[in-house]
């Protein structure tokens, strides 16, 4: 239902609608994400007022590389909907943190873990990792054991010298 409404309203922005295990996922054009989201939240027949989750995904080797999945819930109609957008590496995404306040921290987490930047985010900085951390750990090319695994400590090197 949400898919048909969206298709009518934004014919070019809706790229794909899929159904898996009774869950609907709609892939949208990342450039149109703010219009689509505002429509989903405010439209009478949809009313997706609760942003439950915002997840980044790294499809390394694919183009565009990243995906952002938004999970919405409508408290009025008791329905869930997933909106997905594919973003290329280095391309910033538009923030939805002014539409849902809950997106503020979620977008910070995606930035922290994947290095995807969000335009117009009020306070885009790392949230779980320290400010001086190098790299984005949930990227597939980040080693699980950490980039410095097996490297000697600097202190030891000085002693050897």
């Amino acid at each position, binding site marked *: 239902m949400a898919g048909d409404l969206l298709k009518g309203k934004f014919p070019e922005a809706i790229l794909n609608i899929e159904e898996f295990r009774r869950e609907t996922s709609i892939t949208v054009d990342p450039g149109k994400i703010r219009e689509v989201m505002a429509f989903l939240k405010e439209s009478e027949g949809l009313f997706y007022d609760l942003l439950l989750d915002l997840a980044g995904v790294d499809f390394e080797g694919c183009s565009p590389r990243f995906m952002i999945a938004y999970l919405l819930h409508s408290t009025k109609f008791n329905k869930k909907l997933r909106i997905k957008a594919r973003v290329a590496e280095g391309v910033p995404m538009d923030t939805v943190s002014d539409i849902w306040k809950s997106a503020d*921290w979620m977008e910070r987490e995606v930035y922290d873990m994947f290095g995807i930047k969000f335009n117009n985010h009020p306070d885009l900085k790392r949230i779980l990792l320290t400010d001086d951390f190098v790299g984005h750990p949930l990227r597939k090319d980040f080693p699980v054991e950490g980039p410095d695994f097996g490297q000697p400590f600097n202190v030891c090197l000085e002693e050897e010298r």
Partner: protein
Amino acid sequence: MAESRYMTINMGPQHPATHGVLRLLLELDGEIVVKAEPHIGYLHRGVEKLSESLTYPQALTMTDRLDYTSALSNNLAYCLAVEKLLDINVPKRAQYLRVLFAELQRIAAHLLWVATHALDLGAMTVLFYAFRERETILEALELVTGARLTPSFVRIGGLAGDIPDTFLPRVKNFVEDFPKRVDDYETLLTENIIWKKRTKNIAPMSGEECINYGVTGPVLRASGVYYDVRKAYPYSSYEDFDFEIPLGKHGDVYDRYLVRLKEMRQSNRIVKQAMEKLPEGPIAAFDALQVVPPAKEEVGRDISALIRHFKIMQEGFRPPCGEVYASVESSKGELGFYIISDGSNKPFRMKIRPPSFVNLGALPKMIEGQMVADVVAAIGSIDIVLGEIDR
């Protein structure tokens, strides 16, 4: 001078009232909080990253370590997501036992909450009573799972084993006794004038604000919004049980306290019903041969069962490509798992939706403009667990 008007103080990460390693950067105008900024991540272990290198059955053990006050709920949420991905059905007996465990864990988590929250606000006595009851639950769960904190007992496709004969009589004793115990806590707090002064009209949030901030669980319901995953998207046969969702009116610390106390009574009702209605039958979907390892007795008898058990434990299984989201109502709010499978035996991506993380995001909104002494009450009222926030 303008900049000397405000004082910046650091609360935590080592602070008894921040319930773990939460650090708050508070900007104060006298005793009024002007700005608050939570700093989190001190407990970050990379659970989502680690899960990508573990097989599906192995990744289950990671979930124990999220919200360590209700590990069985976390196990359940993860298993529901993987079962949805595999499209397998769990037998009724396992579903009812899962409900029983989840509700006992909810009571235990809420007891821990009421104990520590009251302690934070200077009402020490409740702690001794609440911990006594919590101990009874943990001992009963230990009898079944063998662990108090990290049970990993809910498994993909069912449960790790059946309950021993001594378990149900124990729980029965507890369930009969428990409503009176909650009355006892209420006599200590509900009409207590000091308690009311410390909690009424403190850190209020309206229903719309809560939804905008993504807040779920008792905090959302204390603001009068009827959203509970158990009713909205019933899982594990919750539709078979008769229970109510307590709602608050004002969305302040006092209402959050009332909602949680009422929830304990409702959970008690569910546990009672689950025991009465508990059907006989298998405790796992043993017909899903690729997913559920054979029972222990069979492994000792049959060589092919032994091999199959070994293969599932070593290699796991390969679910179809796709993505699913499954959630449960944990004691803190909606706990969800978003799993993407690429057809291999390890999750391609496992995103956890921790309720505490999102709820904590609303803390600055709650406490800005409030007195600094009420910050402790506000943190306590959200009921955060840092293991789940930092992952």
